[in-house]
């Protein structure tokens, strides 16, 4: 009988409806699928087209995933103040927090006690300066996640982005991935947490 089972790694991408939270979650999940992981992706959004807190959760593991939801996360990727305030308590100790500080003005102080793996930079604003539009900021974010966690391969990320964005903007998005990868040189691998670790004496 199997007595040690690992819990799937979990990522929550949260922001305000219209920022592309679900699109980003979908692209992340698709990339992980191409990497032959077991992936489930769920989302939450309001009835309105824009506005209100929206989020997308991606769980992935080496084994099939039974329960498709997570209550705490190995990584939070947050794009606005309101979702940051709502979800910050769901970050696991030593989890990775990425904040787009274009709209986030204050990261709560207690986060410092929870984790040191915090990356805060005005990603949307940097995209506007570099590409003239904030729409590539999610792809920049995926490039950044690839760089710091190494959770998926760059080839599969490029494959997914090529499938998900229109051909007209292909070049810009490829540059956005490279731009995202250049943003940080930190390495925060997402650690596998053991769900059960009881020793069997049978």
């Amino acid at each position, binding site marked *: *009988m*199997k*007595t040690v*089972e690992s819990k799937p790694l979990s990522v929550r991408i949260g922001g305000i409806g219209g920022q592309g939270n679900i699109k980003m979650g*979908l692209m992340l*999940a*698709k990339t*992980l*699928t*191409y990497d*032959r*992981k*077991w*992936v*489930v*992706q*769920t*989302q*939450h*959004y*309001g*009835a309105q087209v824009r506005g209100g807190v929206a989020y997308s959760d991606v769980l992935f593991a080496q084994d099939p995933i*039974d*329960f*498709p*939801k997570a*209550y705490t996360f190995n990584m939070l990727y947050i794009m606005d103040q309101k979702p940051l305030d709502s979800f910050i308590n769901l970050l696991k100790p030593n989890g990775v927090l990425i904040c787009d500080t274009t709209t986030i003005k204050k990261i709560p102080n207690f986060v410092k006690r929870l984790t040191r793996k915090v990356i805060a930079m005005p990603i949307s604003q940097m995209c506007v300066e570099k590409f003239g539009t904030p729409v590539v900021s999610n792809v920049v974010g995926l490039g950044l996640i690839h760089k710091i966690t190494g959770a998926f391969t760059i080839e599969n990320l490029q494959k997914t982005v090529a499938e998900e964005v229109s051909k007209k903007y292909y070049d810009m998005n490829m540059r956005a991935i490279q731009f995202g990868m250049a943003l940080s040189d930190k390495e925060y691998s997402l650690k596998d947490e053991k*769900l*059960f670790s*009881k020793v069997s004496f049978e």
Partner: protein
Amino acid sequence: MIKTGEYVLVSGDEACAYGAISAGCRFFAGYPITPATEIAETFAQELPRVGGTFIQMEDELASACAIIGASLAGVKSMTATSGPGFSLMQEAIGYAAMTETPSVFVNVMRGGPSTGMPTKVSQGDIMQARWGTHGDHPVIALYPNSVKETYTLIVRAFFLAERFRVPVIFLMDESLGHLRESIEVPPIPSEWILQRLADDLGDEEIYHPYEEVSGFITPLRMMGKSRFHVSGLVHDETGFPLGTSDVADKLAKRLEKKIQFHLDEIINYEEFMVEDAEILLIAYGSTSRSARQAVRMARVDGIKVGLFRPITIWPFPNARLKKLISKVDAALVAELNMGQIYKEVSQLNKKGKLLNLINRVDGELISPDQILQAINELRIQLDEY
């Protein structure tokens, strides 16, 4: 369209549409409703590519009637909706049952009653799937628990609809419909796909679509030379309305027997670690995924728990479940309603075993930890039982 053997990320709703197209469905009529809209979207995109027809109707009543018409015309058809739309479809489901028209109705359940919670999960339509329309009528209801199973089970739904000439209710829930999962697309064996009989009648022969034959199912023929009368009124074997008591009696009993005589062929369930189980968990749909994890967690702690998951919800797998409950010490039903299957199970509890319910109706899934806690409470109660 996804191809067999591919490793892809698809949602439950998309898998439902892809599976139906693989099963040979070439007509979809529907009206968008969260959380079933993606099924219609996928059909709208994919059906024209395979020569099928997609229609967005004015409402759910029209959608349900349209698929019955299309099916009688010889095309495998389905519609998809959620609770509020499913309520509107009930009259047509009764008509499909009475006229014995193969048809598939997908109901992606959301929180209810009424418009309820469009983006939240629920399993509140279990009884409606069985008794939603009036009168005693035959019905088959299936309920998958994963994206991969949705893809294959919808093919089975079409098979059962064609084989038994009944409306098949394909239940899903919001959590499953909107869940994207990585799957390796399984192959669809050709024997899972049933074709209508070609018109092989002689010139002077008349087709009797409602004849009582051995096994109680007269195969439906392709429209062509055969002409027959279709009516929701009580009818004789030719389909002609005839309200005499002997005709009514024969028809009502045949509709019932059609299902009752083929339970072994229809009923499908999954068992997980029940061989030596002392506590039996009963869960279905999305809830069974939490239950499965709870079983694995409990087993690590040495608690002998097993999971029984009905895949065919109606007809309910009574015989097998009765046997299992008589073997275990206690049973626990986990579901997202006020106890619709719990009451069904309690009727099978002939030996008076301890039977508990854990449920949630707040639009959230039951977590494995909650089920584990309920198992522990059950064990404490069992001590005093």
